[in-house]
């Protein structure tokens, strides 16, 4: 009997290791495979038992449930075929195709589930044609900015240089986001393959994955996967007989949110203090150590193997308007069913939050949803009809960002959330530019004055001026986007900013790491 028990750190945090141990200890005949997570976090630890009909799911499982699962008597936790669960069936998994399905460190598993098809296809093409495929697919950067990946790659390809780099931004610091981690823990070869294709396409020979220090499990998995990939000839010299060389390294961050900003990440990779660089020059021309560099998010690079394997057209056929393909959304915060949901662009936010997410965990009405991390706008409950599309969100002064969706119920104090946005900026600012370094601190103070009823009108005007200055004047998106949550809270929830005696600051000051 084969049993799948996730090794994903979210599953382990609720006891997956103990469950796996219980299966191992149960006696002969049980083969335990540690897979990635299917992304239904409310069901973790989610155990799957292989049957002739398919993989039957049970969850959430405790070690005490193991005997009854093994002898087939556990009906209470049985979910039926995992692939047929509505959550799974409604998705269109390209990036996450193998996550939760395979043993993340089994190269054979990877191959038997379509792995390396993208790279094999790529090396039959000229580098410029690989770039063209990515351009035609419509793939845009999944880190948040949504810049067309193909154009970035073309710039690197067209920039002469003996040494070029591919850097993967895995410094996943946005609140309510965890897709990068789950992909790395659940299907690391997919990222490696994506980076190798990027390297081949642009002429890069060295790659770095910048992984946040809070992801030690992902780091271990990735390093093991890289070792295996070298042994298989998927990395190193003459990859798959292509004649192309690509060496890949993992670098751990040091706990700074700003190092998820691409230029800060490059500084950090160079061994410097993580400070934002002014652009131009852009990293594609003057990147890591001053060399032409592809900088892409994990999900961008993990989308590439499928694009090459299935063709740009197949990918571009998904999605809406200029948002093509799929996005991996992450449901978090006060939500009944949190987890990863990969779907083509175009579904409405309401459908995702209410239908798949099941509304709030507290059962109270949804009051606000923040999409795109701590710098994303707050959307009120009556604006959730927005389609999940870069441009539609931009038109609503919001952003999709990295696909993190954090839900709040009607007990939320939106003035406190606005204050928190400024506080987060003050905490995480690299300190280089004035609007961000000083402005965020003054923003906190000014919101405090507003809420305390001190010269409210003057201070509201000042807060608006400050937000305008931070938006127009900041060096990078950190300071530039901080006004989004502040202004959206002010706009949609003005009543929360009326004077009162004190803010329940303690209640919100630790909400930033809800993931």
């Amino acid at each position, binding site marked *: 009997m084969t049993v799948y028990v996730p090794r994903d750190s979210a599953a382990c945090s609720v006891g997956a290791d103990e469950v796996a141990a219980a299966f191992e200890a149960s006696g002969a005949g049980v083969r335990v495979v540690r897979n990635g997570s299917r992304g239904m976090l409310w069901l973790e630890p989610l155990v799957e038992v292989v049957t002739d009909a398919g993989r039957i799911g049970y969850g959430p499982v405790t070690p005490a449930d193991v005997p009854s699962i093994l002898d087939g008597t556990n009906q209470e936790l049985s979910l039926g075929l995992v692939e047929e669960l509505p959550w799974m069936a409604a998705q269109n998994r390209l990036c996450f195709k193998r996550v939760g399905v395979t043993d993340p460190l089994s190269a054979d598993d990877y191959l038997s589930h379509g792995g390396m098809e993208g790279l094999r296809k790529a090396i039959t093409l000229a580098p410029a044609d690989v770039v063209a495929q990515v351009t035609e697919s419509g793939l845009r950067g999944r880190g948040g900015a949504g810049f067309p990946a193909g154009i970035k790659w073309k710039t690197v390809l067209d920039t002469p240089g003996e040494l070029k780099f591919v850097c993967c931004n895995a410094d996943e610091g946005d609140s309510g986001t965890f897709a990068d981690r789950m992909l790395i823990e659940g299907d690391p070869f997919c990222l490696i393959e994506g980076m190798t294709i990027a390297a081949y396409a642009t002429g890069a020979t060295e790659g770095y994955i910048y992984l946040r220090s809070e992801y030690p499990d992902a780091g271990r998995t990735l390093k093991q996967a890289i070792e295996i990939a070298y042994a298989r000839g998927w990395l190193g010299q003459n990859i798959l007989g292509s004649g192309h060389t690509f060496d890949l390294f993992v670098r751990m961050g040091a706990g*700074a949110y*700003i190092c998820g900003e691409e230029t800060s990440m490059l500084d950090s990779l160079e061994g410097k*203090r993580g*400070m934002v660089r*002014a*652009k*131009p020059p852009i990293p594609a021309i003057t990147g890591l150590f001053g060399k032409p560099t592809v900088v892409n998010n994990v999900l961008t690079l993990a989308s590439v193997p499928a694009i090459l394997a299935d063709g740009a057209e197949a990918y571009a056929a998904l999605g809406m308007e200029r948002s093509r393909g799929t996005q991996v959304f992450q449901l978090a915060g006060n939500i009944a069913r949190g987890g990863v949901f990969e779907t083509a662009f175009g579904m409405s936010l309401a459908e995702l939050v209410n239908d798949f997410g099941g509304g709030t965990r507290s059962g109270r009405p949804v009051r606000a949803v923040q999409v795109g991390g701590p710098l994303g706008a707050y959307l009120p409950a009556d604006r959730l009809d927005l389609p999940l599309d870069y441009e539609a969100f931009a038109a609503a002064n919001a952003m999709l960002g990295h696909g993190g969706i954090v839900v709040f119920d009607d007990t939320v104090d939106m003035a406190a959330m606005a204050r928190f946005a400024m506080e987060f900026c*003050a*905490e*995480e*600012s*690299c*300190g*280089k*530019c*004035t*609007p*961000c*370094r*000083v*402005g*965020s*601190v*003054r923003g906190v*103070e*000014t919101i405090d004055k507003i809420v305390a009823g001190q010269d409210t009108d*003057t201070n509201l005007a*000042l807060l608006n*001026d*400050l937000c*305008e*200055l931070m938006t*127009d*004047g*900041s*060096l990078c998106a950190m300071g530039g986007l901080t006004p989004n949550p502040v202004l959206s809270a002010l706009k949609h929830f003005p009543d929360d900013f009326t004077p009162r005696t004190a803010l329940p600051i303690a209640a919100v000051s630790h909400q930033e790491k809800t993931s």
Partner: protein
Amino acid sequence: MSLIKEHDLGTPAQPGEATITVEVDGHPVTVPEGTSVMRAAALSGIDIPKLCATDSLEAFGSCRLCLVEIDGRKGTPASCTTPVAPGMKVRTQTPRLEKLRQGVMELYISDHPLDCLTCSANGDCELQDMSGVVGLRQVRYGYEGENHLDLLTDESNPYFNFEASKCIACSRCVRACGEIQGTFALTIEGRGFESKVSAGGVDFMNSECVSCGACVQACPTATLQEKSVVDLGMPTRSVVTTCAYCGVGCSFKAELRGDELVRMVPYKDGGANEGHSCVKGRFAFGYATHPDRKLEPMIRESIQDEWQVVDWETAITYTARKLREVQEKYGQGSIGGITSSRTTNEEVYVVQKMIRAAFGNNNVDTCARVCHSPTGYGLKQTFGTSAGTQDFKSVAAADVIVVIGANPTDAHPVFASRMKKRLREGAKLIVVDPRRIDLVRSPHVEAQHHLKLQPGTNVAVVNAFAHVVVTEGLVADDFVAERCEGYEDWAEFIARPENSPEATESITGVPAAELRAAARLYATGGNAAIYYGLGVTEHSQGSTMVIGMANLAMATGNIGRDGVGVNPLRGQNNVQGSCDMGSFPHELSGYRHVADDAVRETFEAVWGRPVLPEPGLRIPNMFDAAIDGSFKALFVQGEDIAQSDPNTKHVFAALESLDLLVVQDLFINETAKMAHVFLPGTSFLEKDGTFTNAERRINRVRPVMAPKTGKHEWQVACEIAEAMGYPMKYGNPSEIMDEIAALTPTFAGVSFDKLDKLGSVQWPCNDNAPEGTPIMHVDGFVRGKGHFVPTTFVPTDERSTRKYPLILTTGRILSQYNVGAQTRRTANVAWHPEDLLEIHPHDAEVRGINDGDMVSLASRVGETTLRAMVSDRMPVGVVYTTFHHPITGANVVTTENSDWATNCPEYKVTAVQVGLKTQAVPTQEAHEERPITVLTD
């Protein structure tokens, strides 16, 4: 005369030919491609507000004051980081921009002390200026918010304060320390609002800071401020002049209030330094007003007598009379003089003229004798003239940099910063030095090869380099065939097996494989440039080594263009100039031999006196002749031969034998203690003339104040000559330069007017090169064809013995200068209060020496005591010290060995023994009453 404020264009100039035309507020301006919008605007006369930008640093984009609007582009990009694009239309003043800029200033001022009226930077503060420029009228945030106002001031550096509460976190200091100076001592600590400038977590004095002043200059506020400005107030006028320390020859603005010098600020238009400085030139000028300085002439019959202060007329008459008396008694050749590399070209010229025309002999020599005389000989033999081939800027085009026997980060720090910048850009570095100098490994710089040779084996190393080049087919055949002569004989010599790296390894200690690799890199790595110092010249084969390097450069074609060359790093501010001016006993100005009748005739025609066709005495000959009784009177212009020349015992014996010793100096130095006449000299702040630096650059030295002595040094020499019966009259120093130009073909085009107009010129400057010659030997060598000269290695006689098993080599340290007469009279002693003996841990251990112990240092000629510093920078068997402090008397132990061709002393190789000492030797205990008493054996 008012305060000079250079127009700060915000970002550095861009190289390249291609230009782009843009429109700034409707004004078209054409600038090189890559230029920032900010600089383009400034060049069109529109200064965009800025705080973090300054044209000495790369754009940073942090203050966000310089935002502009560009037609067709969204947002408000920072003009400092936005390069111009064709047809770009930029608007620098719009209501939107005004509001944003006020918003930025409002944030700054909400965290800044409001003490402008009592602030030391009042009137010279960019934050203050920008508040005015953007029209800031209120700070709506108030002043009660979170702030940095209670941060403490770091006053640890003797020259400047770091008042952290005034810091606006623009990082200009941090960037200057990295980009310009290359030390990387400063950083930003913490992030966000907690960002603070930090000298690596300690105070400035205990940090890696080298006190070059780049951060102070870069600071837009009072945060990093000269203590002198805090104490005295803002200067009101500037005089552009030239530093009087090392041979780099930095240009400075001397900034004064009335006649009081407040600070020295490096001048951006200075060709040698382009706005950079070091701790000496920037800060260590206090010696000029030190109470030790003597301002009145003094005479005495015997050195046992008390000094007697006299007026100038008495002193000059007395000197002239005594000189003539000696000549009458002992002959015309019994007197002579030594010119100073510290004084101006004009002052040197009149002294050598006084000697040749009034003394009537050629007994003139200069302190270059003891430093770079082999450079003169070696480069003249091979290239045809005694000069470095490049300008300093050339290093920016070098791909391979070879540093031989030089320690630029200590001795030529401003040039070292240029070199380090190029190394950070990726140029390769080869260091040839027994000691691990800082360049071998320092922040973002690492030598590809450090050849740790045995002291005294330079020639064997350079021969092995050339052997590899010749035998491995790396010779630049076309260059050699077209431009050189003597190649065949030389190649035959150099290819001999005894010159192979394998054969020389046992002599030099340099592994053959590493030497081969280094030689290949030099020959094939692109533009290769050699920089060398006294570690080349101060050897028994100093001249041979100079020739060897010239051979190597010619063989590889590394001569005559940007980025290559053979470059002496000159020690003193005007050592190049004093040599150029005819200070050597065998040469008239412009390196022309006295035996050349035609040359001599031109001088005789102008001077109206015969010039002897035979060379006069060199310094060591003067000493020998003094001891044997045939040389009886010596005029010493600004040199402390008693401390700086080797074998102190011998020097003292010579000086004691003289009937008349005349010393012209700022201080009663070690030599003056044995003098009969003391003529007070002028500091560089009082001088009017020119210095010539190591790149042949003639810089103006402008008087910042009137001579404190009441008389210029050139006037003193003229008056002595006149009192001896030979009239020498000049109305001012420019007339002296006119005479030099008239008599010296390489100076024919030089005049004060031209220097004032162009800033500086590099000789040759004449009809062929009216604006000077940055790089020499471009189309052909000065002597026609470059001349290969075989360089047989001959080991020095000085070698370690059982009694003296270690080799001593000497050098300098950053904060001190030469014999220390100046720097010891400044706060620079904070960094180097005493000379230290660096010794390898192994050599220390076998002698029971711990770090900080007092040790004796003895050679066959003398002994002294100093403190040991155990250091793995030294190789086993070699010890090192400096000669900045007379109490150490490092030259008590150095010997009379010298270069075979020029008598340049072999300072770099002395066999010594080192032992643990508990008590100072009597010499030093007695030092306060008398200078170094010579030891009896």
